[in-house]
């Protein structure tokens, strides 16, 4: 059985978990190709204008896979650890289904709703069942997938520590993983940071639990757990970098408020806010990032303490 996974949204976070699970159950995994301009255009055609860029990109990937797999994997995720998800992830399954109704898509889904006690393991076991696998096999596949996921997380946390220790000037990049790790919209910015001689430090790679815990020092009532983790990363790492770069897809519900809180409460580092949309891509953002880097480099050279 060929399972298609769009290389978009939470694939950029949970990818290792999902892929390992399907492979452990002898399913073939087909990934969509890295995002290109064409992906964004395709997705935009399938979306309403006002959908966020990340959602448009997702639809572009999903469409690419429709004919290339036996079933497209679309998760539904509601409540996460200590908070909620952007409602996009609650809606994603039905959004995809309704968007491609004319193509009669074969979707395979699972539901994680931690507060409704529909935890991850249960979700994976019932996913296994839908694929015709037994309970035991599904459980085993889940646990091995979990190991793969945790290895990926600790690899990333270690890489983050290395970045923080790099002997360069550093930018803490606070962005959803599917924005900053997207090949078309995020990567160019990352490369630009590197080209400026700076080291990017990815807040979304930090250890989730410690970030959640630290976040309460910055904000009390923030409802979205992924945004909360990014705030935690700001608390933990702001002192160890030279500047902070916020990168958001347009129009992003959570970021529209969370970025403002960060700007108002993280006072000890310069912050640059970049917003990416489907029309302009990264061109404007690149110019602004360049001058931000220039300013920080100059401050450093002038011997400013951070």
């Amino acid at each position: 059985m060929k399972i298609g996974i769009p290389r978009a949204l939470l694939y950029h976070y949970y990818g290792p978990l999902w892929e390992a699970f399907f492979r452990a159950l002898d399913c073939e995994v087909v990934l969509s190709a890295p995002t290109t301009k064409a992906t964004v255009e395709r997705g935009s055609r399938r979306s309403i204008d006002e959908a966020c860029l990340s959602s448009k990109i997702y639809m572009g990937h999903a469409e690419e896979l429709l004919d290339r797999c036996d079933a497209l994997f679309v998760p539904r995720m509601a409540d996460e650890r200590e908070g909620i998800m952007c409602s996009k992830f609650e809606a994603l399954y039905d959004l995809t289904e309704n968007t491609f109704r004319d193509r009669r898509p074969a979707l395979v889904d699972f539901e994680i709703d931690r507060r409704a006690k529909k935890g991850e393991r249960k979700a994976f076991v019932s996913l296994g069942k839908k694929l015709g696998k037994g309970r035991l096999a599904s459980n085993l596949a889940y646990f091995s997938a979990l190991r793969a996921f945790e290895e990926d997380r600790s690899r990333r946390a270690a890489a983050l520590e290395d970045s923080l220790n790099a002997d360069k000037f550093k930018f803490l990049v606070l962005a959803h993983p599917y924005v900053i790790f997207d090949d078309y919209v995020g990567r160019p910015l990352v490369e630009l940071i590197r080209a400026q001689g700076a080291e990017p430090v990815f807040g979304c790679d930090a250890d989730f639990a410690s970030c959640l815990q630290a976040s309460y020092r910055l904000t009390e009532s923030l409802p979205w757990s992924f945004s909360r983790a990014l705030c935690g990363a700001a608390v933990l790492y702001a002192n160890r970098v030279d500047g902070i770069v916020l990168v958001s897809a347009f129009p992003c519900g959570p970021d529209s408020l969370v970025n403002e809180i960060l700007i108002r409460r993280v006072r000890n580092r310069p912050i640059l806010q970049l917003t990416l949309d489907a029309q302009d891509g990264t061109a404007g953002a690149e110019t602004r990032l360049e001058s931000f880097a220039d300013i920080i480099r100059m401050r450093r050279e002038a011997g400013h303490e951070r």
Partner: protein
Amino acid sequence: MPHKVSFPQFGDYWIPFEHLVTRGLEAEYVVPPPMTKRTLELGGKYSPDTACAPFKYTLGSLIEALEAGADLLVETGGACRLGYYGELQEQILRDLGYSFEFVNLAGANYSKPLTLLPFLKKINPHYSLPRFAMAGLAAAKMVDGMDAVDDFVRKNIGFEREAGAFEAARADFFRELRAAADRKEVSAALSRCLERMKKIPTDKPERPYRIGVVGEYYTIMDPFSNHNLEWELAKKGMVIERWMNLSGNRLEPAKKVREKIRRYTKYNMGVTCMSTIDCALTCAKKGYDGIIHVKSFGCTPENDAIPVLQNISRDYKIPVLYLSFDLQTGEEGLSTRLEAFYDMVVMRKRAWS
């Protein structure tokens, strides 16, 4: 000194809030001035650009409440971005230099009233619970009554013989509500108003045009935010049906809704999506002449409901007008779109019959 309490403007629902605060908590209530262009300008100026319109409206309203003398602001929580309004708005107002106390109900759970108690204490440390409970009953009745009256008005105002009759009855009712001392007086005022409205002479055709209004919580309920589009349409001679209101008493329980819209959605798509889709489907099945989908620009949950509405529209051949509001939404552009929608609805009906 009792606190001078205020809450952002939200349609006419300040009336029950005022009752709760003055009669229930024995504090003062500062009615924020009616929203104007200035409210928008203030809200727009101090809000992050990409925040949704309701954030900007309510921030502007809080600023005007402070200017009017409020010293304790209350902000609610909610399932979407609304859940984070309070904390950010408080920060923005503090950064602007205002001093005030802030009660952020994001920490409360409305389905468990006991979680509200610590918040009440902040408003008045010596409040009496029985007193508050009595006021709560009256306020709840007010909300029910206002929703019932508004529902009646939306369905009939387009057909009144004497212009202004419904508006006058409604205004009198609201005045009486403000004076009502308890639940009994609220009920009496409500019956009087409903009686009076039933007697208002109307010329309603046997099969009038019927339009359903669905969409996002704040924008749909706040006539200032949606440029009073319901009345504007109604007055062209249409029955306007809207299920979403503060009392929520016209919406069906979530479980039943999920069952009814199963053909379109497998899961709960979050926040107000389910009721939006359910109400739209009801309009479609009952042969309404059109649907208007109302939301603020960038509202993620309502955006995600749109592809479903598009499918319903295709399946049942019912026209849907999608309106997305932000601070730039102009009176004229909106009127033109409503006009065009109205013309289309009329033409379609003629073609069918």
